[in-house]
């Protein structure tokens, strides 16, 4: 009989096994060890090296579909920036993302306030919300941030916010932190802003787009890169936090081992079949 039965295996068994492998470690964590790769350390160090009170542009380009991969690095990066006493201008170029981004930032700001940090909206951070236009917005921001965003996410006039008095265009920022789930995202920021305006940038992206962005890291166009949930978990570990990305990594690791096993078994079955074929 051999392994031939695997060919006829109902795929719903595979779904069930993946489901259990994901569910199990979430209920009872097993603590798979986590390291910290060079791109993640570079991401962390790029923020750690910023002088206090510098102004950072943080573009959160995602919508609820990318929440598990995008919200953890948003929280951790915002916390690190606030603890460095940097001031942050937040934008969003995805239609459905502005509400989620605002909620995430506000929750994180409230957590920091509860720990005794003095953080004030408008002075320490500003959420400019969503602007339609993709690359056109990026180029337009080079002519003036308030020009592209006349009002913020909360319908305040941009010119009325104290932080925005110090922000003119890209030259006002020391770093661009891009949290990117696809288009428009890191690729477009590199092409339109990093290349034209020479604004240093780091990126946290979905795992599916990470291979596309590694060349930018190698060329120095990106100063650091977090790829997917694994990157976000490593970043949380570097910061000494235990967020949702870290909690998800046991499940991620077990499911990956199972997928790899399926690929090996599939190849063994095909190889055996070819050998025994008349």
């Amino acid at each position: 009989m051999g392994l031939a039965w695997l060919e006829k295996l109902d795929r719903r068994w595979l779904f069930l096994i993946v489901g259990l492998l994901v569910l199990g470690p979430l209920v009872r964590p097993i603590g798979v060890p986590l390291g910290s790769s060079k791109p993640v350390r570079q991401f962390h160090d790029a923020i750690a090296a910023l002088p206090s009170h510098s102004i950072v542009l943080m573009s959160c380009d995602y919508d609820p579909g990318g929440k598990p991969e995008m919200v953890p690095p948003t929280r951790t990066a915002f916390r690190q920036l606030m603890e460095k006493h940097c001031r942050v201008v937040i934008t969003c170029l995805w239609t459905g993302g502005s509400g989620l981004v605002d909620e995430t930032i506000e929750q994180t700001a409230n957590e920091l306030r509860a720990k005794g940090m003095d953080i004030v909206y408008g002075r320490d951070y500003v959420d400019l919300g969503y602007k339609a236009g993709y690359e056109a917005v990026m180029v337009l921001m080079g002519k003036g941030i308030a020009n592209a965003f006349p009002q913020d996410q909360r319908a305040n006039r941009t010119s009325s916010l104290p932080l925005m008095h110090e922000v003119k265009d890209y030259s006002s920022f020391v770093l661009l932190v891009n949290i990117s789930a696809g288009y428009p995202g890191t690729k477009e920021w590199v092409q339109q802003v990093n290349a034209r305006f020479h604004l240093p940038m780091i990126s946290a992206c979905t795992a599916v787009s990470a291979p596309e962005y590694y060349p930018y890291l190698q060329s120095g166009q990106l100063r650091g890169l977090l790829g997917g949930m694994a990157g976000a978990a490593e970043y949380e570990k570097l910061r000494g936090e235990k967020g949702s990305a870290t909690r998800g990594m046991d499940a991620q690791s077990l499911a990956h081992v199972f997928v790899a096993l399926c690929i090996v078994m599939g190849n063994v079955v095909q190889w055996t079949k070819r050998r025994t074929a008349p």
Partner: protein
Amino acid sequence: MDEAEDRALSLSQDFGVWVAALLTLCVFSFLYKDNPLYKLAEHLFVGVSAGYYIVLNFWTVVVPNLFDPLYRAFTGHDPVTHAAVPQPGGPFAASLGDYRGWFLFPGLLGVLLFTRLSRRVDWMSRWSLAVIIGVYAGLKTTGFAQGDLVAQAQASLQPLWGPDLWTSLNAILFTVGLVTSLLFFFYSREHKGTLGVLARTGIVFLMVSFGAGYGYTVMSRLSLLIGRFQFLLEDWLGIK
């Protein structure tokens, strides 16, 4: 007692969380087989998303970027507070960031897109499309040339002998991978002899990159599943 044993159910009291959790389970039911519950969730998602995005775009794009500036330009008052907003020079005295009445032109181009709804006048929508395509083609071309073509070609020219053995090996491997992968896409000569060997070497590098891409894609999709399970366990069932 360890951390896992401390966990207890604490069902959410939030109606929205219950709706989201039940719809998630409806979608998961498709993994067993197609069924009416899955269809219900799917149709709800399409309908609600369409409505949500239309309303969102109207209030976050059309109103603040078109209606409000036009109202200010032609009435001299703020559309929300109704306070007087001086418009020196009149509604067409524009400057950078203050385009005033000139917003009528992009507004008109936007309206022309809707002529596609009538076959008799749908040709007019091409003017708007021409502007959109022209602008984005220009932005994309210059962006790609600066951000990808020049910068990546520059970064590919690495010295093969670095400060240490590891850096040198890395640079040599990179260069071999780059050259052989490019040669694989050279179709002007049949892939035989030396070119054949180099092209086959290029395939190995390409396969490694496809494998890395596949691995990352699996990680991305599993992250979505983990996100949903975390929602069900933590937000719905209250297992923290």
